[in-house]
């Protein structure tokens, strides 16, 4: 009984800390990256929420997929995602991550991000405004708080399915195994 209580308290603190300290991986994968600087700098100042850019995947919590992903980038993004430490979150920016967006008929971009990576939140827009991005973060915070931002668990549980999808588009699969 007491142990449970301790665990619960720990969870609450952990969730609270996770929610207020979202470190974003500095990886501009697509054109949505152009609205990241305004979001992070003085005009919108996402740092007010403890959102900061991080240089390496090992240290980051949130992976922003800022729009379309070229197949070549997808391979690197998967690698990057797998290097991140759980719990980790993926944010899909704009139309391109949802259903192909502008590049729906492009031979070189993926259409549905959630086939390849577990996406915790999608933001509407092409591209999302800074307000939209911040709104996405706030929504993500809510999800973390309620314990629903479980994309990383989903990825572990359904790794097989994700791998099948990933290998379907990435023709030359030379990557180390995912270890968590």
């Amino acid at each position, binding site marked *: 009984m007491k142990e449970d209580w301790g665990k619960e308290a720990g969870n609450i603190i952990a969730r609270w800390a996770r929610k207020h300290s979202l470190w974003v991986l500095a990886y501009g994968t697509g054109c949505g990256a152009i609205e990241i600087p305004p979001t992070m700098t003085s005009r919108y100042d996402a740092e007010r929420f403890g959102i*900061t850019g991080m240089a390496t995947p090992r240290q980051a919590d949130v992976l922003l997929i800022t729009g379309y992903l070229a197949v070549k980038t997808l391979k690197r993004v998967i690698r990057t995602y797998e290097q991140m430490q*759980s719990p980790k979150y993926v944010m899909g920016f704009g139309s391109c991550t949802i259903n192909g967006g502008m590049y729906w008929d492009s031979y070189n971009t993926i259409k549905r991000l959630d086939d390849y990576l577990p996406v915790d939140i999608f933001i509407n827009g092409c591209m999302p405004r800074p307000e939209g991005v911040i709104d996405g973060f706030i929504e993500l915070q809510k999800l973390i708080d309620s314990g629903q931002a479980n994309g990383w668990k989903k990825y572990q549980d359904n790794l097989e399915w994700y791998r099948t999808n990933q290998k379907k588009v990435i023709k030359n699969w030379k990557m180390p195994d995912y270890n968590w």
Partner: protein
Amino acid sequence: MDTSFNLWILLMPFVGALVGLTYMGIGRRIIARVQHRYGPPIFQNIVDVLKLYSKKTAITHGVMFHLAPTLAITGTISTLMFLPILTGPHGIYLFSFKGDLILLMYIMVFGCLAMALGAGQSGNPNSAIGVSRGLSQMVGYEAPFVIAMVTLMVQFNTTSVHDIIKAQDSFVHWNMFQSPFAFIAALFAFLGFMGNKPFDVVIAPAEIASGPPSEFGGKYLALMQTNRGMFAFVKLVLYVDLFMGGAANFVSLLAKTFFFYLIPLFVGIVNPRFRTEQAITFFWKWPTVIGLLGFLMVIL
């Protein structure tokens, strides 16, 4: 005495880390203000560390990689132990009676070396380059620092920090004013110590990701961040001890350390980063010359 002593031994690292991290938080707010924005909450860095502790961590790069953060934090804690934190009747001395400046100078490097070894094992070329840069730069800023320390030791004819503090019994006797050249030299070294711009060649994000810690994440990074906070506190206290005559109570300690914290912060806000060799040349030029000048004045 004994209970309070033991209590302080247990508490001091936490206090140090908290203070260090809070300073960083305040620093971030100040930076933000200059940058025309609001910035994060003051306790943001503490939240960050808490979060990092809560993260699952699955990185394997070898034994040294595992040990490095622990070794680093051990180094910092031992430094803290040998440092007079508060002076006067209610002073917190811990083991500082037993140690002296030379020991301090030695164990301060210990943590950095541990980090270097750990980072070296991570296999990330960014880390390797970061380590090599760090070591090079250390060679740079250690020069003026050592000169300043030697000046102080010669001046007071002691290697004990405690004695140096005692010698600065009043405001006017602070080493800041008594031996300004040594102070300036040490101050430049301090900029290097703190790794703020323009001397942040080690972590230089735009160049080598985040340098040595590139591969460290989750709990490792948490330890390292704690260490960073604590180490900042250690350095600040050391400088307060050496140049501002220590502090008799917590309020004065905080005020004085914060003053020292602001100096590299302000310099960092408005300056870009040196290249490594530029940083080394810089250290070996002005600060060293000034330090030597002070040393000469002392021995003459």
